[in-house]
């Protein structure tokens, strides 16, 4: 049990259907302007007909432990918050886009008001003891908000014995999103 939080997500792609409820819930919760989104859905198909495979993923900022956006931000607008998330201080942001060039996950966009914006992991909700908007709405229960410093038994059971990966680990970013692969079949 650690007093220090380290929030991230476990995303169970076995059940995700790519419906995009997470995207719309986020847009409403965080007043994301028309034409932009902070999270998005990827549907990836592999294999050869008729042996096809599919993985649906609800993607967003990975709240990396070693975040290139923080490293390359010249104004310290992008920073690590105490709860393990990566946040942007809008008043310090000049919209120079260095963070966008550095981010291996393409998780950021320039808000029409001039600053760079991205997933905050609904910091305002976590602070109130609530789950993120995307986690709350998800009909399949694919999305899980997790404090990796204090992982509960439910999450440990969920991850146990399954193929779990992180994206672009070779970039050394130590991303805070863990993915349960869709290749885990029936009850794995």
């Amino acid at each position: 049990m650690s007093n220090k939080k380290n929030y991230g997500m476990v995303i169970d792609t076995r059940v995700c259907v790519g419906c995009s409820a997470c995207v719309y819930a986020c847009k409403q919760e965080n007043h994301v302007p028309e034409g932009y989104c902070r999270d998005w859905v990827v549907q990836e198909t592999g294999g050869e007909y008729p042996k096809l495979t599919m993985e649906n993923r609800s993607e967003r900022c990975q709240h990396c432990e070693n975040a290139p956006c923080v490293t390359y931000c010249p104004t310290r607008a992008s920073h690590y918050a105490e709860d393990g998330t990566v946040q942007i201080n809008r008043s310090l942001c000049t919209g120079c886009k260095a963070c966008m060039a550095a981010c291996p996950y393409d998780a950021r966009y320039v808000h029409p008001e001039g600053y760079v914006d991205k997933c905050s992991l609904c910091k305002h909700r976590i602070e109130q003891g609530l789950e993120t908007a995307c986690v709350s709405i998800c009909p399949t229960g694919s999305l899980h908000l997790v404090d990796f410093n204090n992982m509960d038994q439910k999450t440990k059971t969920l991850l146990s014995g399954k193929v779990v990966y992180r994206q672009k680990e070779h970039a050394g970013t130590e991303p805070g999103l863990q993915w349960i692969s869709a290749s885990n079949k029936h009850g794995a």
Partner: protein
Amino acid sequence: MSHGQNFSRRDFIKISSIFLAGSAAITTATGHAFSGADTPVGDEGSKVVHSFCEHCFWRCGIAAHVRDGKVYKITGSDHHPLSQGKLCPRGTGGTGLLYDPDRLAHPLIRETKGGRQFYRKASWEEAISLVAEKLWNIKEEHGPGALAMLHHGYGVSFFKNMLSQIGVNKYAKPSYDLCCGPARQASVLTYGYPSDTPEGFDMKNSKYMVFFGTHFGENMHNTAVQEISDGIRNGAKIVVFDPRFSTLAGKAEHWLPIKPATDIAMMQGLMHVLISENLYDKAFVEAHTVGFDELRDSVKDMTPEKVTEITDIPADAIRTVAREYAFHAPAAFVHSGRRTNWYGDALQRIRAIHILNALVGNFWMRGGVVKFEKFPLVKPPATHEHPAYEKEAYSKYPFFPQDEPSNTLASHEIIQETIAGNIKGLLIYGVNLPETMTFGREKAIEAMKKAEFVVAVDVLPAEVTGYADVVLPECTYLERYDDLDNGRAFRTPFVALRQPAVSPMYDSKPGNEIAKMITDKWGIHGAFPPSVEKGLDKKLRLVGSSLEEMKKKGVLVMPETDLYRKQGEPLNLNTPSGKVELASAQMKAAGFDAVPKYTPQPEAPAGFYRMLTGRKPMLTFGRTANNRFLGDVATAKENEVWVNNRIAEKHSLQNGEYVHLKNQAGVVSEFPVKVKVTQRIRTDAVYMVHGFGHSAAKLTWAHKRGASHNQLISRTDIDPAMGGVGFQNNFVTFIKEA
């Protein structure tokens, strides 16, 4: 009002934008409702209104978050059994409808001047007077049988009550013909009770779920998707028979790309294996079913090898699925699907599904077929005694339901009767007829032009409103009360309240007020309670609650019911035999096959491909077509035509290029559609999502986005038993852009 010289010709009128909401200087407010850049994130200073959704028929519980008189967020209701705090994209998208700048803002009346037809803005008093007078006069002159209503949506109950006051008994919901009808009636014929929503399958406890061409995950039926996900987490295997690698197929242990239109042959093949390999539940079949011998004889020749020739699925795979299915039974089922009415044989097709279930003895068993219950509301005494002529079943189809007061005949029967001149007045509630697949676009328009009087009640200036004499703007479901909803059956029976989150915008009104105003004009008083609130309160007090109580959580929930049968207990079903009817003597007596039999469907002409359809998870056809909020995601902006990569090569089609489609009757799509080259579909079919390609220019978002599936339906196949409409015997080819 004048129709000009020719009474039977009704031209399509493009509604002038000055009658729509966009002119009311609301666009800036709308922009804020979507982006909300001026308000801080979080829920401070807001209230939550619990109601239920109207973006699809599932009717999930919603929590509308309201601040400063605006709905800024919609989430799933924690209290409502169908949402359990979760919501699909369409549910969140209520704000996109509420703040749609294209909304109908005023009543409109058709005028003709100098040979030109146009709409003029009218007061409610004037519009209501005209509607009341016209409907009354048609009733007086031709009898109540000359009036009919086509409807879709939960607000219809008030209009049903209104019309029944003057003896009208012709009501149709196109959703019966296209979607729920065959499953409902197949269940009645086989089990003795109608199927419900959610469908009666114990999905979360199942170990083996078989689906034929139904697209959960793309059909975002919230509760069903939640339970399938639970099933996957609990280790269930999924099997999908579908010509297309759907999202659900992506979850499957076995995806079997079956040749379209051969499902019944496959079902017979599975029955053959279950019976010939002695895998079926003999004890259940003996004790609780009738007609086994007839069924066995009918599938004797449907060997896996023969079925392979018909369906393109290897015989080994057919045997594997049948054996695995029997192994996991009774915690296994074949799902009856939704919106799978394709070839005019849907009743028999879903009967075959029920038979596959009965054979493995999963009836009322954990993980199998179950019967969810509804919340029992006390029925108030009728306000109108129906004389015998109103009680006649008007549908000519022998297995059309006789027990659904708001669905007394098939919607294509109304269309045909209107074209024939027997029906002279139409009330169209929430149905965008030209884009609804009931009989194709041309027939729908012909009927509306032929009718003496058409009144449309709608929220948006959809195509249908252009053919009406009077357009009455209803407010959205977020601005009104409707009747209590105990129409959904689930594990915990419940009754839900629809209540306004905000007041009606513009000059729109709730349906309950509109219907009451019309009956008042007829001089019929007492048909409606003094106010909708009083009526709801009275009904709720009969079950020990009140409107005030109900407003807090929006739902009243009963404890979980026992879904599973006990060994040795008789089923006492409401079928003629009291048992599950594998062979149906009723069907035989009416001249149909007692057990389902595969019959071949037409093949595509050379160079054409069978046109399959479905939906996107964030859209519900007409209800969401013009929703800017839901449209604001790349995958929602248009429909695509899915073309197999080998077929694309043959026609020199590139991924992402735009083509027009032409069907077997020579109809060319009004708008071009984007090509998606993919391995995810067979070479003999193409796929496109329904509900795009709108021609109504006043649907400023939906206009010209993608191509209309409905426009390309030239052939329909009507189920001779239950009256449903199949539309998949249509074939298209590609016309490359010059």
